[in-house]
């Protein structure tokens, strides 16, 4: 049931303002290429959050521009050249700040909904 509800949820609403947070958090696990980031988030949320390439790649570009991730080409285990992304120290600091903001927002929403 929970999974079906999550799927019905408009994805853009869920992701609004949190895509940076999700991508940065994912990259703290290990360096990944774009497809792997997308698959990781999709798998972890049982397909509740599906990030479109049209959102993912511009986001990665923006994060690079801000110095929160770096990118470089490498040969993947499948033998193909892939572009891998790494979180930087500045990215980690940013992630910390964004997590705090997110937690505060969730707490505030919970209070409004009477769940906290």
């Amino acid at each position, binding site marked *: 049931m929970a999974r079906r509800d999550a799927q019905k949820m408009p994805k853009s609403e869920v992701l609004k303002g949190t895509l940076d947070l999700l991508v940065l958090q994912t990259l703290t696990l290990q360096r990944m290429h*774009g497809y792997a980031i997308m698959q990781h988030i999709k798998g972890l949320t049982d397909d509740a959050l599906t990030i479109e*390439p049209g959102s993912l*790649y511009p986001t990665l*570009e923006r994060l690079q*521009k801000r110095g929160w991730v770096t990118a470089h080409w490498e040969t993947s285990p499948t033998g*193909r050249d892939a572009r891998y992304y790494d979180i930087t120290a500045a990215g980690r600091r940013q992630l910390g700040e964004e997590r705090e903001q997110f937690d505060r927002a969730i707490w505030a929403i919970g209070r409004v909904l009477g769940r906290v």
Partner: protein
Amino acid sequence: MSLLDALRYRSQALFKRAKFGRDAAAELEHHLELETIEQRRLHGSGARERAHRAVGNVTFILEERRAAAGMAPFYTLTQDLRYGLTVLGRRPAFAGATIVTMAVGIAAVATAFAIVDSVFLRPLPVPERPRLVRIFFQRPGGGARRRGLDAVRVLRSGAPALDEIVAHESRNVLQVGVGDRLIEQHGAFVSANYWRTLGIQPRIGRFFTAAEDSVLDRDPVAVVSSSFWDAELQRDPHVLGRRIRIGGREFVIIGVAPFGFDGIAVGEMPNDVWVPPSMARVGRLNCIGSPRCPVGDALGRLAPGASLQALRTQLRTVEPRLSAAAFPDDSVRHVTAEPAAGLSVAERADYVGLSRLLSAIASVILLIACANLSGLLVARGTARQREMAVRISLGASRIRLIRQLLTESLILAAIGGVVGAFASLWTTRGLMGFFVTDDEGFRHFFNLEVNARIVGLPLLVAGVSTLLFGIVAAFTSSRIEPADVLKTSRSGAGVQGVRIGSMLVSAQVALAILLLTAATLLMRSAASLMHAQQFNADRVAVLRWRPDLAGLEEARFEPALHQIVERLQALPEIESVAYRRCCNLVWSADPHGNAHVGLSATDTAAIADAQFVSPRFFSTLKVQTLAGREFTDGDREGTERVSIVNLPLARKLWGASIGPASIVGRALQIGSAETQVVGVVPDYQPRGAFTAAVPVVYEPYWQTVAGSDGDTRFAIRVRGDVTHDISLLMKTTGAVEPTVVTTEAMSMSSQIGARYVQLRLGEAVLAAAAGIALLLSAIAAQV
């Protein structure tokens, strides 16, 4: 990521746009491959198509990515430029006409500006240019008055805003002897700090020291220009220590000035020799060393941090001391300082008229070009209304269309601007070429090097025209209702455009006719000046013989002059020889006159120009005497003083109704001398239609020799070709007195041409402008 990394990212995004595109596409391709594998695992067949659907619009993703990287404006600009060039390529007539129109307008404005810049604004071409100032006594009419070395000494103690003050006399004709050759060169007498103040270093050797400028006539040391070293000394590697003669005295060359340095008298003759002021007597500046000698200009250098305003305030406090040092009376003259830019203050007056004429013509051409441009853009807008309507219907935003149209205008402006800028360099040099040689054959130098202002102005004009016309046209073209335009027939939509276009063409033709009329009037005026004068300049050679530069005494130059005339007259090529003391053969030295004349010793209120002319002077120039005779060999010192008057002087003295014949035999007082009028000549001096006639009194060359320095100008009428005979004439005069230089050799026709250079130039510019205007009108009518 450090700041350095962020900068690297941005610069890579900016400059490696192609690599960015390739990387982004490769990454998406990799994504697509992995998605295909996933789809194959989930669904088997049709995996590639499913993967494509899952990934979405690749072009859109790439554009979004470019936008995220901050590259979108560059990308769309590239797209717009590419499309703009394609569109313009499809309409070569429109593109060509617009570029020509813009180039002509820009070149006209840039040329006028370049000349105004060169004459009034351009700093001296030396390293210390920003701090250099000219200091001079202001004349009531706005001109400058230089008042010598004493005033410079006062400035040294009374103007702390200056850290250097240079005394220089940069306009001197010197007779220079190299080996057995004599040449006339322009030299400058400059204080020892001249070089340091300007910030220049010698090419070879050294400049002179303050000690070498401390005792009158003691240190004959000279610095020569690079061009003198090249042309006259054949780049002699042992030039230092070599001896040259200046004004009859031996000088030692101690240095060569840097390449291209012509001195600081821009607009005047380039300096080839620099000598300390203590040696100025070799240039006949004999008052050097005596009080209030009015020789020498002052050039100052502002101390670091000092302002021109502070200097002007200080000058006001020392004004009385400066006046006392410079002028013999006790009145106080106004002293001022201004940045050392453009031509010297004295020279500028000659170019004010030209600058105004050029500015006026440039404005008219610009006006025509603007009308043309508006017409072309209106025509383009009308022709492309359907295209715009279709693009709007397909979803293009108005902003996108405006940006596209502006990019097209920008391309045209950029090409027009570059073509116009190049054309203006050529026209500027061409126009200033009119002034490179004066009516005495002297070369003048102008600072015409390309600077940021000269390049920037055409581009600015191009930019402003784009803004003015491009934006309006873009807004008009994009502000259409697609449905209306698509429904309306083409011809219907174009009627208004055609009407505006024909109005603009009519305006252009009217302006072109105006220019053409002005050009015709000026040409007629010039033609009457050149050909309808009352003397005949054909087959007349002019020469100047300068015993004064060689310091030749009167006792020596008088027999030498007689001998020259005899030898010249003995040549079969020569028809007749005449000469005049000092000044130009057919013009007055001073338009206001220099002699007091009248009917008696107690009545000499009238002012006339006194000219000392030889026997056969008027017959050589083919000036018809209206009454009486001209001077003969018998009019010598010790005989009865005689004079000849021109008609304007005769009318001034004896009334407008008097006949020339009745004047002959009358007494005429010239200063303190009583003379008898023996002849009357017409007013043959060439002058413009609006210039008043100059009253002239002529006296015999040999009747009052005292006071003459021997400087003589010859008019020699030859039987054949003047240019062919000039070297023979120079050889003949040079053989008589080898220590005296003969200069300014040319045909009288070229001298007159050079004298009226502004008129000839105005005529040429107006004719060219009228031609351009007609061409532009023709373009507008055709496109």
